[in-house]
Every structure is written in C-alpha cells, then in structure tokens.
C-alpha cells in the first residue's frame, strides 16, 4: 500500500536498474523504510521503539550465534563452557554480557512499545492485525528468553526450568505426562537442556519472520500517530527517510548509551547471583524468582492461593495451582481481544480524559505486580499482588469496554497538519461527523473527525 503522494523508487545507475528488474530488493527497502514510505509528521519519541526492538533482535541474534560457537548444551559442561566464554574466549565476556543484558533491554523496549500501543490505542482498526502479530512476537520472546535463561545451567536456570515446566503439570489429566514429555525426563537434565538450546536457537528466526509480517501489516494502513487522526493529505506526512531514519538514529544512540552502560558497568545488576552457582538438583535456592521481565506475570501466577471450590465443603472445582496458570496465560491472551474490547472511536489517550486516568493506573498496577513478583511469597505482598491482579483483569475486561462506552472524548484536531501547525487550510472546508459511538473500524476516516 501506499498513499497516492508516496515517492516512487527511481533507479539511477545501470546496476540498480538491472537489479530493479531482476530482484527489486532496493525498491522493497525504499518503500518499507526509505523515502517511499510516507509517515505522519507528528510522531513523538514513543514511536522510536519499533525500530529499537528490531535492533535488539539483531543484537541478540548476532551475539547469540557467536556465543553458540563456544557453548556446549550438556549438563556436565554447560556451566563450565559459559565460564570458558567469560574467561578464555577473546571478548567472550563482552559478548555474553551484551547477550544477557540485551535480553533485558529487548524487554524494556518491547514493554515501552506495548504501552505506547495501549496509550495511543494502536491496536484499533485498521491496525488489529499489527497488534495481534505483535502479541505473537511477545509470546515467542517470552519462550525464547525463558529457554535462554536455562542454558547457563546455574541454580536459577535449573529451578526455572523445573518450575516453568511444572506449570504445565497443573493441566488436568495430561499435565504430569506433559511435563515429563517437555523435559524428556523426570527432572531437567541433558534432554531438556539440549532441546531448550535447539529451540532457543530456532525461535529468534521465527520471531524475525513474524516481525516481517508485523511490518508488512503496518504498511497496509501506515503508521498511527499521537493524535490518532488518520492521515488525510500529503502535508500530514513526511517521507520515512531521511526524517525518521535521522530521528531513529538519534534514538538508537541514546539507547546504546544506556545499554552499553549496563553491559560495561553493571552487567550483573539485572541478573540473579544464584545463577553463578552451578545447577544442583538436590537443593533449591532460598528465594527463586524469574528474570525481572516475567515478574508481573509471575505475581499473577502466585496471586491465586486458594482452591476454587464449593464453600464449607471439601469439593474443589479448580485447584489454586491451575487457577494461577490459567490466569497467567489469560493475562497475555487477553491482549488478543483488546481491539474488540475497547470500542472508543477516538484512538489517542490525549483526547480521552477518563481512559487516560485508567491507563496510568494500569502502569502503576504493572509496576506493583513487578515488585510483588520479586518479593517473597509473604504478607502483605500476597494481598497486594491479589488486588493488583484483580485490577489487571478488571482493567482490560471490564473498565475498557465500559469507559469506551461512556466517555466523552475531547475535540480532535481536523488533521495532523492542524495538530502540528495550529492551522490547516483543508479544515476550512465544512466539517462533518462527530466522535460519538460508532464503529471506527468499519467507517472511513471521516468518522474520526472532531466532536464540536
């Protein structure tokens, strides 16, 4: 797709002309992230994180492939080969720290990208497919990160593998055999380590594939923007290159400064000391926690402490363990139906006063869940995480549908041009349509004009 005014790729040299006929790859790039992709001119820095996430994926694949040249996935030697990388391999310590912290930074970037999507309702029509693919990427990332954390075969690796595969044992009837099948044994050992390594190597390339679909889907409607008003005219957009390549270049620089600061000065701050103890199947660390980026979901998992049954009898309908597992998976799966839960015709949180308040409550809620996920399973953290978990589900499943129904949005600018410059000649033309109710996805852009 493209807007009518998008620049056309014109090969200049004989070589590029020849290439354009045989394999128009330069044209593809030109239209995807070059001058041929018109982008709203009003994107703020929150729109940097898509490019940064792609960059993180590249960091992880490059450092990961290199680390795999020195690592051995065998329970006898895995821990030792990681130390071999740290001590003997040229720049091995740098590569490993970049990979370990790269995972954390990938998640920081992705969380900001997701919350950008929450605030500006980037999931709404016509961009539902982009959002759905994004949730798929996030799930694949979680699986990849978990399996990667197992590979050093430290104490947290081992017990993480034990506990996370243990989640599946909560499933009625097939649970226990399923866990044994996943591990290839009765406890994590060579079989589990080897398959995790294999999948940890494979999945990033699957992610890369879904990322291509994600970007492809993005180029159908074009990028969203902070006003949530769709692009109407050429003056609403600028070519991606050089405007956003330059801006993303600057954003990348800031990101790299923060990232390298962690790699070179605080490389173990985001990890857990126990993972520098070799895996010991006979002794669990006193306080096991997943990596920080899983903590909110871990808190949701642990929030369910009571079996769901008939009160004052011994009848248990759903045991607490299974409830926690269901809730944890549901907490992410709920994102899949998000485009259909929030039906407000206005996208941007800037023009949605009530929605905006709840958005910030959700941000705080996630922070509380993260904190509680890392805290020991004691009071008052259990009660706090239960309240936060309740809010999490209420937010997506109850509050968003109701708010989108009752909220009176603020007036929207006529166009991006008007939002940026304060005036837009095209706006002088009679305005039609208001922002009350209605199904934004099925209506043309006119439905997203301001309520006056």
């Amino acid at each position, binding site marked *: 797709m493209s807007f009518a005014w998008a620049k056309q790729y014109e090969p200049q040299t004989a070589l590029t002309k020849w290439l354009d006929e045989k394999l128009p790859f330069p044209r593809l790039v030109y239209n995807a992230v070059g001058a041929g992709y018109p982008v709203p001119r009003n994107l703020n820095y929150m729109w940097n994180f898509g490019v940064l996430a792609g960059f993180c994926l590249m960091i992880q694949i490059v450092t990961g492939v290199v680390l795999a040249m020195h690592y051995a996935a065998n329970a006898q030697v895995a821990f030792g080969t990681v130390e071999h990388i740290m001590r003997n391999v040229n720049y091995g310590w740098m590569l490993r720290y970049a990979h370990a912290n790269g995972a954390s930074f990938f998640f920081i970037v992705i969380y900001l990208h997701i919350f950008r999507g929450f605030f500006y309702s980037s999931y709404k029509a016509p961009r539902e497919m982009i959002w759905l693919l994004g949730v798929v990427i996030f799930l694949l990332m979680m699986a990849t990160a978990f399996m990667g954390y197992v590979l050093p075969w430290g104490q947290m690796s081992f017990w993480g593998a034990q506990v996370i595969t243990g989640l599946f044992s909560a499933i009625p009837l097939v649970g226990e055999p399923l866990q044994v099948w996943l591990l290839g044994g009765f406890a994590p050992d060579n079989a589990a380590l080897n398959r995790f390594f294999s999948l940890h190597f494979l999945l990033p390339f699957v992610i890369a594939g879904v990322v291509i679909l994600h970007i492809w889907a993005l180029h159908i409607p074009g990028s969203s923007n902070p006003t949530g008003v769709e692009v109407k005219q050429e003056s609403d957009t600028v070519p991606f290159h050089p405007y956003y390549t330059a801006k993303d*270049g600057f954003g990348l620089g800031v990101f790299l400064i923060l990232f390298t600061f962690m790699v070179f000065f605080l490389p173990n701050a985001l990890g857990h000391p126990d993972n520098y103890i070799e895996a010991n199947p006979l002794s669990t660390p006193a306080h096991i926690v997943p990596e920080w980026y899983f903590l909110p979901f871990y808190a949701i998992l642990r929030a369910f402490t009571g079996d769901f049954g008939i009160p004052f009898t011994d009848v248990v309908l759903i045991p607490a363990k299974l409830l926690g597992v269901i809730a944890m998976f549901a907490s992410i799966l709920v994102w899949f139906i998000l485009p259909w839960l929030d039906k407000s015709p206005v996208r941007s949180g800037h023009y949605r006063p009530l929605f905006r308040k709840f958005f910030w409550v959700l941000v705080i809620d996630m922070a509380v869940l993260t904190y509680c996920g890392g805290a020991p399973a004691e009071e008052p953290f259990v009660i706090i995480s239960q309240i936060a978990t309740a809010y999490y589900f209420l937010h997506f499943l109850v509050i968003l549908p109701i708010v989108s129904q009752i909220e009176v949005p603020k007036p929207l600018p006529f166009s991006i041009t008007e939002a940026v410059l304060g005036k837009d000649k095209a706006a002088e033309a009679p305005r039609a349509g208001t922002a009350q109710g209605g199904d934004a996805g099925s209506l043309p852009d006119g439905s997203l004009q301001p309520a006056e």
Partner: protein
Amino acid sequence: MSIRLGGIIAGLAITAVLVLWSLVPGAYNYAFGPAPEKQPSYAFYEHGEGPAGGFSFDGAFGKWDYAQLQRGYQVYKEVCSACHSLKFVAFRNLQELGYTEAEVDAEAKSWTVPGIDPNTGETTTRPGMPTDYFPMPFANNIAAAAANNNAIPPDLSLMTKARHDGSNYVYALLTGYTEPDAEKAAKVGFETPLGLYFNKHFPNVNIAMAPPLAVDGQVTYADGTEATIPQMSADVAAFLTWTAEPSLVQRKQTGWWVIGFLLFATVLAFLSYKQIWAGLKPKKG
C-alpha cells in the same frame, strides 16, 4: 458487542474467584490468624559491610591493587585451599596478578595435581603446570561432605558473583565470627547447633565453616603487610573478586571508550536529526 459482554463477564468472574477464594481467606488469616513464626536466628542477622574505604576495584574507575591480589592469593593458598576448590582458575591466570612467567611456573610446581602415570596408566599425582587448573581438595562431593560434617565447601571461583554484593559479603563473613548477644539469645532461646558456628553476617547465622582466619598473623605476608584478620579478609575477598571476574577492570576501561564514542556519535546524530527537521517546510493543504 458480544466480545465486550463476554469480556466483562469473564473479567468479573476472574475477579470474583480471586477475591472470594484467595484474597478474602488470605486477608482474614493475615488479620486474625496466628502470626507466621520466624526462626529466632533472624533476630541475630546483621547486614555486612565491606572493608573501611572500600576496595580498589570499586566504582567506575576501579583498578586492581596487584599487591593486595597477591596477598589474597597467599591467603587462599595457605588457608582456604585446604577445603575450597577454585576450579575455573588455572595457574597460568596468576600471571594477570603481576607474577612473571617463571614465577608462575614455580608457583604451579608447588601444587600437586592429579595425573596419569605414562607407563602404567594408573592415576597418580604430579607437580602442576601453568596450564593446569587449581586442584580439588576432595576427590568428590561425597568425600567433601564426609570430611566436613556433611557440609560441602563450595567452589570459590565465582563466589563473589554468586552472592549479592559478593566482595563485601566475603569480607563481612570472614570478619563476622562473634558471639551472639547472650542476653538476647537467652530471651528467645537461641543456640547455635552443635558443629555449626555463629556468624552474624551469614544468612541464617549458623555456618558450617569454622572461623578460617582465627588469629592475626596467621599468614606471613611476603611484602611485610601486617596480617590482621580484617587485612587478610579484605585481601582474600579482593582475590576472589578477581577469580570471579578477571575481566572486571578491562571491562570498565573498555566501557569508558565505548560510552565516550557513543556520546560523540549521539550528539552528531542529534545535530543531523535537527538539521533535517529544520528544513521541513510545511506544505499547506
């Protein structure tokens, strides 16, 4: 509409289950149930601090104090190595502490490592070579447990990274052997179990390791430094920081170059970005 209705119902159902079956019983129990019993030993734990003035490698500009590392190595060799292995460190690595190649050769020879008789193939021992790794004091975990009252002395190669704030922790632990406050102990009925030792900086204050640095002057330093217990503790903590992360100083130094370069590049990228956007002429629609 049906998705939203279903969502609202599902959301309320999840919340109801969570609140009624988990939150309410838990909160009731927390408010009116018996308070969870804490082990009396918790009352005696004190968070440990590092040596006064910190370590030379602390901070973003930290550097190794090679004399200290060599002293720490001496403490490890003469005291710790009786029970604790250092299996990820090779004798050749000692050259990084400022020893010459010949000194490392001689040092390696002073250790006995397992070997194989070239004629009979039987296991035997031989003097160490620079390429050998520090030998294990016990043949295996069972032997280690049997010789140490069922507590296996952990490998020390990574100890300072395997504990929170590890360098300071090692120092605090080695200087933390005291007697518990007798009055307080009598009050809560606390007693260090037989065969264990009281250490206020060990997480459960009862440690299986007997005080390894018991008297001042236990080690005679070659450089004439007075071998007080805090001095020996700080030295061996510094040495173990090196064994856990030999690249620590190189890492920080490389970091300054990388970050300096990135700052420069980012400023340029910012100027370039601003230039490009400054040229943006709004097209009136």
